[in-house]
């Protein structure tokens, strides 16, 4: 039976938006910052669109999970971070990789498995990380990085510094034991970790309500006594605002916090997903709420930015993506010695 996403849920999200109020006018932000958030979201989308083409052309192998539709989540999260805050996520990691500042060249080169990729071509789409930028991966086993996130936070708690670990995962990951072990431990030890569930409505092709005992994922955090809230994950400013508040709460030594971002992926779970589990109308409905589209419209309506400025950003992104593809295609394959490198330190 085909699942049709209920209209009610879209309304619920609009409800969330209304209760947050007019964030745009409520938050004081430099115009440049608005433009930068827009730029990052467009960059993610265009890099991934080109990635999809290169995948279809057989230049990218393995699994590739696109973030398109969810750009506001990682963009808003990273916008609220301090440099000492650590990020860790699952396999849908290209967006976060770009947000933390990995150049599009290195992301694209990793997708193509080249030596110049951020993981030297040995990780691929699902395994990008950059320790310099406090980005601790891209992890491909569902839910397995949550205990790791607890550990990053434990390391910081042990060192008595003020870093917070931001751990992103999908709704599907909240049904596996790792989630429960890690979230419980974070509360027991008051670890400085922000749990961010990206509820994009499906774990692969299985709708949340078909897989999770509670369809409001945040209720699971409630069960562990962790303060939590639902956020409109299609609104980059709402994400940023909620994240900033949560980070302050955690940094003050109060222990973990949990955000459920309501969002949606437009593309399949991974490349080659036949999408038998949803109707195209459902995707269209969500696209009316497109994170880039609504932000663009609002910045224009409120006269924060002009169409010329957006055009300039779009052109800059197009150039950057083209350069990234060229860089990746021209980069050398990893040397054969690389096969045996880095199995161990010693």
């Amino acid at each position, binding site marked *: 039976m085909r699942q049709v996403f209920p209209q009610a849920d879209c309304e619920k999200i609009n409800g969330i938006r209304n209760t947050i109020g007019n964030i745009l006018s409520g938050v004081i932000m430099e115009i440049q910052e608005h433009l930068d958030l827009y730029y990052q979201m467009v960059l993610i989308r265009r890099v991934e669109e080109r990635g999809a083409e290169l995948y279809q052309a057989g230049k990218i192998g393995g699994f590739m999970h696109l973030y398109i539709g969810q750009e506001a989540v990682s963009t808003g999260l990273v916008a609220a971070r301090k440099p000492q805050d650590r990020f860790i996520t699952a396999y849908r990691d290209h967006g976060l990789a770009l947000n933390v500042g990995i150049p599009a060249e290195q992301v694209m080169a990793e997708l193509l498995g080249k030596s110049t990729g951020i993981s030297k071509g040995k990780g691929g789409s699902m395994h990008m990380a950059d320790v310099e930028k406090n980005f601790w*991966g891209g992890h491909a086993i569902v839910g*397995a990085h949550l*205990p*790791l996130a607890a*550990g990053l936070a434990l390391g910081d708690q042990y060192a008595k510094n003020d870093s917070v670990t931001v751990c992103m995962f999908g709704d599907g990951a909240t049904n596996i034991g*790792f989630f429960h072990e890690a979230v419980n*431990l974070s509360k027991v030890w008051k670890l400085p970790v922000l749990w961010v569930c990206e509820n994009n409505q499906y774990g692969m092709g299985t709708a949340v309500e078909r897989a999770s005992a509670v369809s409001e994922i945040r209720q699971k955090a409630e069960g562990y006594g962790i303060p939590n809230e639902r956020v409109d994950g299609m609104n980059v400013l709402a994400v940023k605002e909620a994240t900033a508040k949560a980070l302050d709460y955690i940094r003050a030594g109060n222990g973990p916090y949990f955000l459920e971002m309501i969002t949606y992926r437009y593309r399949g779970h991974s490349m080659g997903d036949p999408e038998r589990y949803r109707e195209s109308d459902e995707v269209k409905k969500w696209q009316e709420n497109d994170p880039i589209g609504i932000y663009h419209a609002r910045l224009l309506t409120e006269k924060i930015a002009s169409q010329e400025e957006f055009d300039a950003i779009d052109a800059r992104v197009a150039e950057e993506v083209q350069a990234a593809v060229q860089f990746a295609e021209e980069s050398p394959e990893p040397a054969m010695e690389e096969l045996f490198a880095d199995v*161990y330190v010693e």
Partner: protein
Amino acid sequence: MTETKRITMREAISQALWEEMERDERVFILGEEVGVWGGTYAVTKGFYDHFGPERVKDTPIAEAAIIGAGIGAAMVGQRPVAELMTINFAFAAMDHIVNEAAKLRYMFGGQFKIPLVIRTVGGGGRQLGATHSQTPDAIFAHFPGLKVVSPGTPYDAKGLLKAAIRSDDPILFIEHATMYQVRGEVPVDEDYTVPIGKSTIQRPGSDVTIVTYSKGLELSTKAADQLAREGIEAEIVDLRTLRPLDMEPVITSFKKTNRAVVVEEGWRSFGVGSEIASRIYEEAFDYVDAPIQRVAQKEVPLPYNRTLEQAALPQVEDIVKAVKEVL
């Protein structure tokens, strides 16, 4: 001459942990019942009072969280010793041992270091039934990226554990449940380490090579004593580390004796003995005078009943018989 003292395996392991925690503030312990209880095998007795709850951390019964948190803390520069109460519970943390600890460094192009020690206890012989008596060492030794260490003497236990804690790689350190009272000479007041990835001759001999480690060393030594009374001199090679495997002392010894018996407590199929025998055949085929024998656990889940349990576990007599088979 270095002054030594005869201490137990338990004391040796405990001393290694204590000394490393005193030496390096980044070293801390996490695991089930390691703190207030003092460790289920009493290895960390007194640690909680001395080092405090921040460095001796009692965890929930949640093996994936214990190992996962250990990996995460190691990634950001701490040097945790994560304890799994027994190796049988490692299966609940298998993903973190195999898919994370063993792979993260390689998979991200060498960006991460994971200086994590996973201390655990394996082995049968205590009538704990099939789920609590396993010796699955070979499974863990299968994975590149992980190191697997399992000492057979107090001297090696202390030196290897100290080396493991100082290493930047993830290491599974397997102790044997029935060996905590085994005694041996250990230097007093000496900060020594034993290199990981080095096999050693524990007893010289010229007639046959016995290759073993951990509990197998205790059994093989008894077998060698018995054989010596019959005029047969067995040379015992103790692997100490299963991965990376150091075959050099094995091959050197085999080229001298031309005969080998491999002794392990795990099951025979796909085990340590299979690996050692294959490598001898590959590297020293021209020196083989008799088919290599494997002494290992019978292919059954270990039963509770004492007689049945002992019948399934390798015994001294099995080793003596296997040696006579190859002579």
